[in-house]
C-alpha cells in the first residue's frame, strides 16, 4: 500500500481525536483501517493510551477537601464583617463630606459671627474652620487603620 496513504491515515487519526472528521474523511479512514492492519493497530494503540490517560487514578491527600472548606469558611468569616464595616464607614464618610461642603458657607458665617461678637482672633477662626473639614476624614482614616490592624491580628492567630 502506498506510503502516502498510511501517512494520510495517521494524520486523519490525529485529526479525529483533536478536531473531529468530516463524513468524507471519516469514511476514507474507516475503510483504510479496515484494510490496513498496521494502521488499525496504531489506531487501537492510541485509543488505549487515551483510555489509560482518562483512567489515571490520583489519590487525594486525606482531608484535603475538609481542610480547604474550613479555610475558605474562615476567610469568609474574616472578610465579611470587615467588608460590611468598610461599606458603612465609606457611606458615612461620603455623607459627612457632602454635608460639610453644603454647610461650608453657613459654618463660615457662624465662625464670622463668633469672631464679631466674642472678639476671637481671625487665625483661631481659620484654624477652627480647617478642623471642621479635616477631623471627619482623620477619624475615618484612624478607624480604617484600626480595622486593618485587627484583621491582620486575627489572620495571624488563624
Amino acid at each position, binding site marked *: 500500500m502506498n506510503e502516502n496513504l498510511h501517512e494520510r491515515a495517521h494524520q486523519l*487519526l*490525529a485529526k*479525529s*481525536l*483533536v*478536531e*473531529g*472528521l468530516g463524513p468524507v474523511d*471519516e469514511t476514507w*479512514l*474507516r475503510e483504510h*483501517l*479496515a*484494510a490496513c*492492519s498496521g494502521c*488499525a*493497530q496504531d*489506531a*487501537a*494503540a*492510541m*485509543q*488505549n*493510551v*487515551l483510555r*489509560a*490517560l*482518562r*483512567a*489515571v*487514578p*490520583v*489519590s*487525594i*491527600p486525606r482531608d*484535603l*477537601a475538609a*481542610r*480547604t*472548606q474550613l*479555610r*475558605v*469558611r474562615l*476567610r*469568609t468569616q474574616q*472578610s*465579611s464583617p470587615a467588608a460590611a464595616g468598610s461599606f458603612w464607614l465609606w457611606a458615612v464618610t461620603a455623607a459627612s463630606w457632602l454635608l460639610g461642603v453644603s454647610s461650608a458657607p453657613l459654618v463660615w458665617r457662624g465662625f464670622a459671627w463668633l469672631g464679631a461678637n466674642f472678639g476671637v482672633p481671625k487665625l483661631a477662626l481659620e484654624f477652627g474652620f480647617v478642623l471642621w473639614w479635616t477631623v471627619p476624614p482623620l477619624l475615618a482614616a484612624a478607624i480604617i487603620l484600626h480595622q486593618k490592624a485587627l484583621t491582620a491580628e486575627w489572620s495571624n492567630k488563624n
Partner: protein
Amino acid sequence: MSTPAFTLTAAPQPLLFAGFMTDDTQALATGLRQRDPDLLDRLIEQYQQRLYRYLLFLTGNPPLAEDLFQETWIRVLERGSQYNGKSKFESWLFAIARNLVIDASRRKKISSLEDLGDQESNTPYDPPDERAASVLQMLVSRENEQSVQLSLLKIPAYYREVLLLRFSEELGLEEIAGVMATPVSTVKSRLYRGLAALKTAMTEGAA
C-alpha cells in the same frame, strides 16, 4: 486481519460536567458573587479530584499541588464576582489554578509553563523536585497505565497539560484556549504535537 479496536468517533465533545450548565451556571455565578459558603463547600467537594489531578499533573509535586489547591479555592472565594456564568465553571477554575501554578513557577525563575520544557529541543520535562517522578509513577496502577504514565513523564509539561484537559477533562478546544489564555490554533497545534510526542515516548518505552 485484526478488527480495529479504534472506533471512529468525532473528537470528544465537552461532557456534561456533573450538573452545571447554562441556568445552573447563572445560579452558580450568583452564589459566588454572594460568597455563599455552602455553595463553595459543595464545589470543593465536587471538583476536588479533577482540580487536584490537574495541579498534580502540572507541578508533579504533591505538597505544592495541595497548597495550590487550597489557594485556588481562596481565589474562587475572593474573585467569585468575576465569574459571569457564561462559560463553564471548570474552565474558569482551571484558569485560576493555572495562573497560580505559573505564579509558583515564577518564584523558581520560570516565567511560564512553556519554560518547564524546552520547546525547540523537545527536552523531556524535568520534574520540579526529585519526589515528582516517584509520585507521578504512583499515579498509575495497571500495566497499560504504567506505560502511559512513564511516557507522560517524558513529554513537556505544556503537552501534558493540553492532553489532560482534552482527553481526561474532555474540555472543548475553545474552553482549553480560555484556560490557557492562548488562541485555539495554538491549542490544536499543541494537541497534535502532544499526541505525537506521547506516541513517540510510548514507542521508545516499548522498545
